[in-house]
């Protein structure tokens, strides 16, 4: 029996010819990532364990993104801990305010991650980089500390679900609608401990931004990782961008999958996950009576250039509905700059939206758009748990940038139609 793409990457990083699902392995890491919330805990552990130095100053990445520019004094202390640690260990990939972006938008953009990598990050959405054909998974701060010290991590080799994609997405849909539809099908633990391997003729029609968004939310189905094969779209994206040579892995023809699920992309409709679980999905068209107080367009799921473009195309020359706060958060400084250069920033302001510097901010109820009791937000973020964006009696509806922007104009959840 052959290996899945994920298993092949893990075998190569464990120095083994073959691995099987369920096997415990020790694998070499290409990148170890942390942010301003998880790194301080890792730094404490790193110091307690009396590790002398990081395994490779160029392979540790620390991004301040959750609560920066610092939301309060305590957040400032956490940033300071990260800054001092990065400085004392000469961490080359340290991203502070002015340089930072939301980590999972930033790392691919800056070419820090590449195909064939084995990556851990102390952030659950680290699974995003599977879009480049890497094995990438979220861990906690202790794993981050151990990874920074040793350059190694233990893994249980996952089994896999194969998603066979066919057809092409309708023009009012994007990767977000694909992954919400899939989570709606299999549930929030539908891929628990497993890889989600996306293959098939439909892959080619998906942009890198679509693929990054799809892999980003693999964790919302409980998956260990999501992964796409490397094709000419990936190669084109990586060209001149990645710091290290990509290594291309392919699943064996006789690889074993626990399940194969067919997804016809042409049948996808604009989809919304209602409170309080990402699996609670409904077509946007059925939710037209749901009034919203706030719209958030951004996050590690949907803060990329195509997301900004979707928002621009829908909001330009129009006005955000009275009584709606529309908050747009470009994912990185490069994306923010591009929005300024193209005149989109002005168009957003003219439409009555606000534009923030990159931050995770409202997605996890940090700051920059917290909800009061009884308020409702449609957001392009990734979680709609109880209290996720503020008061326990507030509600978050998850949607694509198209649906979120269209809803900003009407004040109700609205399916975008061209």
């Amino acid at each position, binding site marked *: 029996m052959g290996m899945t793409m994920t298993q092949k990457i893990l075998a190569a990083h464990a120095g083994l010819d073959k691995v099987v699902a369920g096997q*415990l392995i020790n694998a070499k890491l290409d990148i170890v990532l942390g942010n301003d*919330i*998880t790194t301080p805990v890792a730094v404490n552990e790193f110091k307690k364990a009396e590790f002398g130095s990081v395994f490779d100053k160029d392979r540790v990445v620390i991004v301040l993104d*959750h609560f920066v520019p610092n939301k309060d004094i305590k957040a400032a*202390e956490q940033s300071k801990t990260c800054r001092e640690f990065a400085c004392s260990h000469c961490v080359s990939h340290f991203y502070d305010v002015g340089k930072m972006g939301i980590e999972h938008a930033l790392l691919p953009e800056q070419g820090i991650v590449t195909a064939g990598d084995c990556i851990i990050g102390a952030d659950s959405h680290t699974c995003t980089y599977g879009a480049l054909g890497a094995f990438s998974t979220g861990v*906690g701060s202790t794993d981050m500390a151990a990874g920074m010290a040793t350059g190694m991590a233990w893994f249980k080799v996952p089994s896999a679900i194969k998603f066979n994609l066919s057809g092409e997405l309708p023009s009012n849909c994007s990767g977000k609608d694909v992954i919400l539809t899939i989570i709606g099908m299999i549930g*929030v633990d539908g891929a628990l401990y497993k890889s989600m391997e996306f293959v098939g003729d439909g892959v080619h029609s998906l942009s890198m931004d679509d693929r990054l968004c799809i892999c980003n939310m693999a964790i919302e189905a409980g998956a260990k990782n999501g992964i796409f094969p490397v094709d000419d779209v990936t190669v084109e994206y990586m060209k001149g961008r990645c710091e290290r040579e990509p290594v291309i892995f392919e699943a064996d023809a006789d690889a074993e999958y626990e399940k194969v699920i067919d997804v016809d992309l042409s049948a996808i409709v604009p989809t919304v996950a209602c409170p309080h679980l990402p699996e609670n999905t409904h077509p946007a068209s059925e939710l037209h009576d749901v009034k919203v107080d706030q719209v958030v367009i951004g996050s590690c799921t949907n803060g990329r250039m195509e997301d900004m473009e979707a928002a621009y195309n829908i909001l330009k020359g129009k006005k955000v509905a009275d009584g709606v706060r529309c908050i747009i958060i470009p994912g990185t400084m490069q994306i923010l700059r591009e929005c300024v250069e193209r005149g989109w920033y002005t168009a957003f302001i003219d439409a009555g939206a606000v534009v923030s510097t990159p931050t995770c901010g409202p997605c*996890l109820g*940090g700051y920059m758009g917290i909800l009061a009791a009884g308020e409702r937000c449609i957001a392009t973020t990734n979680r709609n*748990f109880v209290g996720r964006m503020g008061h326990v009696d507030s509600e978050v509806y998850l949607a694509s940038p198209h649906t979120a922007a269209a809803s900003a104009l009407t004040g109700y959840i609205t399916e975008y139609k061209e």
Partner: protein
Amino acid sequence: MNTQGKVVKYLDNVDTDVIIPARYLNTPNAKELALHCMEDIDADFVKNVHAGDVMVAGWNFGCGSSREHAPLVIKTCGTGCVIAKSFARIFYRNAINIGLPILECEEAAEEIAAQDEVKVDFDTGEIFDLTTGKTYRAQPFPPFIQSIIKSGGLLASLKEGTRNE
């Protein structure tokens, strides 16, 4: 390794945002964070929990964020063990890494009631419901994981490994 205490019971998909809301994550201090453990779904949890108590829940416990603060606050509150039908994978890994005993046991998680007095033998995976007299057996951890837990967590086990080399 044993624990004995009263059961507090929760449903499926208890997520890390309700275990410890992100609005408090501007500090890594476990004691300070523990004051807010479970507060968004159970405001009385912190008030009522005693050392050794057992948390019992349904499927996919600890889903969501990778925050290690989640198992850490449950442990810091004094909880002796979490029994669930299943755990989300990052929470599972984090619990092992920080030394919070957890057991997967569908039958126990289904049948044990809130307020029952329960004793757990973490080494053997045996769960005794002293209120009903029923015994359950959870899947024990593989030896690889047991050695991490016995060392007191991942970092302690790495240090031991270095000493043995």
